[in-house]
């Protein structure tokens, strides 16, 4: 197991080099430069030249890339052109918000998706099955931003049940040592803040979690349908084991493998999906930050932020691979 983990970690090196080249080339392929974006109507040829010199954009691309690699290797992603703040500082401040949102969305997706998929499989062909298929199809088909806007309009603007923007009541005086607000509230046993933070999480998490929920429900349904017809399940039932034990030990456990794969992939995708959700809910995470960086042609933020998210995506998938071995001991890595 240790050898497997080490080998996978070593494989990260070429992946990261490839990623850094992709990100670097992609950012430079965007039309326009920071000078055009920042100066707007005040653009003059002289100022554009001055900006390009300052940002090193007048140097050959390979020189720019080498400088980028040198600084990135020291975990220095540079300074944001728009906010003038170090990119690493901004990541430290914003990533916990995105993690919290992605986790909430995934908890919702798994917490509802697995039971829904399981029940649909158990009632295969029935109304519940068809209903859940229909709902999951809608979940997959509705764009996240559209659902986010709908949810916000209904539950925040029309009904006034939930807040429409932010992570926490803006008048709150609570300190956040870890920047993970739910965790901070639990650690300090501040239940009022805990409820407030959850209130702010519900709508973005539902919007962001809708697609993974539908996918998890469908994969669970398919996996359970597959597994429940296996011989060992029939044998377990024939032995007279209680149905709940058969479901838990024999069906669900074996159906978890494809579900865990999809959870890993979806967690990575949630981080990118957060761009639209965070924008709609003014949720101060990495998604909203990257969206603004695209509009501002903020090269350091785009390069640093995307590389960081890609690294997280790769690491999450590494964790998923490791979890295979834990969930299913039959799997052996050579």
């Amino acid at each position, binding site marked *: 197991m240790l050898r497997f983990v080490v080998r996978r970690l070593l494989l990260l090196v070429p992946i990261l080099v490839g990623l850094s080249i992709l990100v670097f080339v992609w950012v430079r392929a965007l039309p326009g430069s920071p000078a055009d974006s920042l100066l707007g109507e005040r653009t003059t040829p002289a100022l554009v030249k001055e900006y390009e010199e300052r940002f090193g954009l007048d140097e050959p691309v390979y020189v720019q890339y080498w400088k980028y690699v040198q600084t990135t290797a020291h975990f220095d992603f540079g300074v944001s052109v728009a906010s003038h703040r170090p990119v690493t500082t901004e990541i430290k401040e914003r990533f916990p918000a995105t993690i919290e949102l992605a986790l909430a969305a995934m908890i919702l997706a798994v917490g509802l998706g697995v039971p829904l998929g399981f029940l649909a499989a158990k009632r295969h062909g029935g109304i519940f099955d068809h209903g859940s298929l229909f709902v999951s199809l809608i979940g997959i088909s509705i764009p996240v931003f559209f659902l986010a806007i709908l949810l916000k309009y209904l539950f925040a603007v029309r009904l006034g049940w939930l807040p429409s923007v932010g992570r926490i009541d*803006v008048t709150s005086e609570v300190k956040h040592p870890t920047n993970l607000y739910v965790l901070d509230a639990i650690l300090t046993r501040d239940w009022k803040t805990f409820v407030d933070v959850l209130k702010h999480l519900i709508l973005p998490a539902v919007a962001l979690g809708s697609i993974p929920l539908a996918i998890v429900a469908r994969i669970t349904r398919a996996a359970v349908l597959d597994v429940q017809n296996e011989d060992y399940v029939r044998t377990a039932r024939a032995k007279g084991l209680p149905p709940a034990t058969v479901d838990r030990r024999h069906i669900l456990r074996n159906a978890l493998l494809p579900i865990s794969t999809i959870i890993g992939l979806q967690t990575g995708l949630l981080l990118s999906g957060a761009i639209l959700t965070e924008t709609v809910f003014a949720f101060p995470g990495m998604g909203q930050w990257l969206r603004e960086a695209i509009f501002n042609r903020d090269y350091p933020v785009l390069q640093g932020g995307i590389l960081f998210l890609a690294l997280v995506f790769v690491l999450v998938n590494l964790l998923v691979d490791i979890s295979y071995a834990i969930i299913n001991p039959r799997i052996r890595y050579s």
Partner: protein
Amino acid sequence: MRGRLRFGALLAVVCMVSLGAVSAVSGKPTQSSNTFIFAGASDPTYLDPALVSDGESFRITKQIFEGLVELKPGTTTVTPALARSWRVARDGKTWTFRLRTGVKFHDGTPFNARAVCANFGRWFNFTGPFQDASATYYYRQIFGGFKRNESTGLGKPLFRGCSAKGKSVAIVRLTRRSGPFIPSLVLSAFSMQSPTAMAKYGANQGELRGGTFRPTGSYAFSHPTGTGPFKFNEWTVGQRVVLDRNGSYWGAKAKVSRLIVRPISNNTARLQALQTGEVNGYDLVAPQDMPTIRGNNRLQLINRRAFNVAYVTINQSKPPMNRKIVRQAVAHGLDRASVVRSFYAGRAVVAHQFMPPSVPGYNPSVKKYGFDPERSKRLLRQAGLTLPVKIEFYWPTNVSRPYMPSPNLNFAAFKASLERSGFEVTAVSQPWRPDYVKNVNQGTGGHLNMIGWTGDYGDADNFVGTFFQSANPQFGLTRTGEHKAIALLLDKAEAEVNPKKRIALYKRISALIAEFVPAVPYAHTTPAVAVERRVRGYVASPVGSESYRGVSVGGQ
């Protein structure tokens, strides 16, 4: 069966928790009427006003800091602030400011003539990264250069020196006469900051990293210290800036005890936060949201006086636009009144010159070019041209500016009216960023191009001086011929320190520009701020940064 029941129960519990959470709580924050919560579009860059140039930073610094002069609320009239009065010596270069007494900075240190000179001296003595445009954009624009310029792009500095005469008189000496000097001091960039706090918290420490300036001391992030009606409390990036009432303020104290400014980048999200009561007000209201706000009896719109100009550039480097008679034909061929009436929802007036009526120097009697297709054709024939005259007309996509909310509609109407007036228009659209603005400003766009300008401070030089004082490829102007005469007058107006004489000069300049037709101004628009109806005392500034000192939030 028991298993199914368990899953059923689990599902029910999850649903109940979600629904219970939804129904048990209200989305509205627990807000006191002593707090005013306002939404801007983004975080401030940082809070040292001398080192920022963006509106969101100025929105905060305007509350913490004050300058020697300020704008009378809601106008562009310069009034006393920390200086009770000022006068210029006969040489036109020595300015004497009589200061308010008994004023203290938020750190308890006194505001006096030495502090004024310390601030002017700080700007003048900036070195290294502080001389970069990303740090001192406005200082460079107004004062031209530093004590020791470290870049060839910098000019001779306007500032020569400052001396304190007692505690309450500061004498500022300039190297040349400058009319815009006093009007430009209303910019938050020239606010007075506590020399003690700046020294204590490293305000003069900064670096250029990756081409971008950033302060490395803590002053600009957590210790901004001015004399203003609000004191800095806390800034959580991405979430809020909290300011508290300055109980020792020298003037009428702020009506709310706390001010929170939160960044919400999305227009619709700002509107919805106002609708749900999560904020008391927001800026940069999108024109399409105005009917929603008007239709809600809990909300109100507060207009900013027009401080911008939308115009169609005429590039004289592209024949036949080098001929004045053709440019006049263009002016008669653009149906500006219809565009303003149809596409600005009653929030604009037709522009006839390159500064809005609120700017001193506006001339109400410049030559006006009404829409007259027949006259336009006649002028083109007089120019010896065969109709239709083929021209390229550039317009921007992916953009909505305060002065040009719907460029596509404006363009379509202008194209139709020009084609009725003897022109054959080839439409060229480009995305605002990155191609359009660059092409227009570098003179590589079309014969005609739609663009505009929002002023920084209430001085005519900030409008007509910006456009027409130097050679400008946007209009194909080279500071020769008729343009040279206008440019020389602009030089003279810039150096004139007598306000009445300056106003007379700018009126004359506006009349000359209207005859010269380097471009066709067509709209001055009125942007708006949206606030709850229970918010009182909000006076919107034309230049975009108002003090919230007089704002109160009434009961529900």
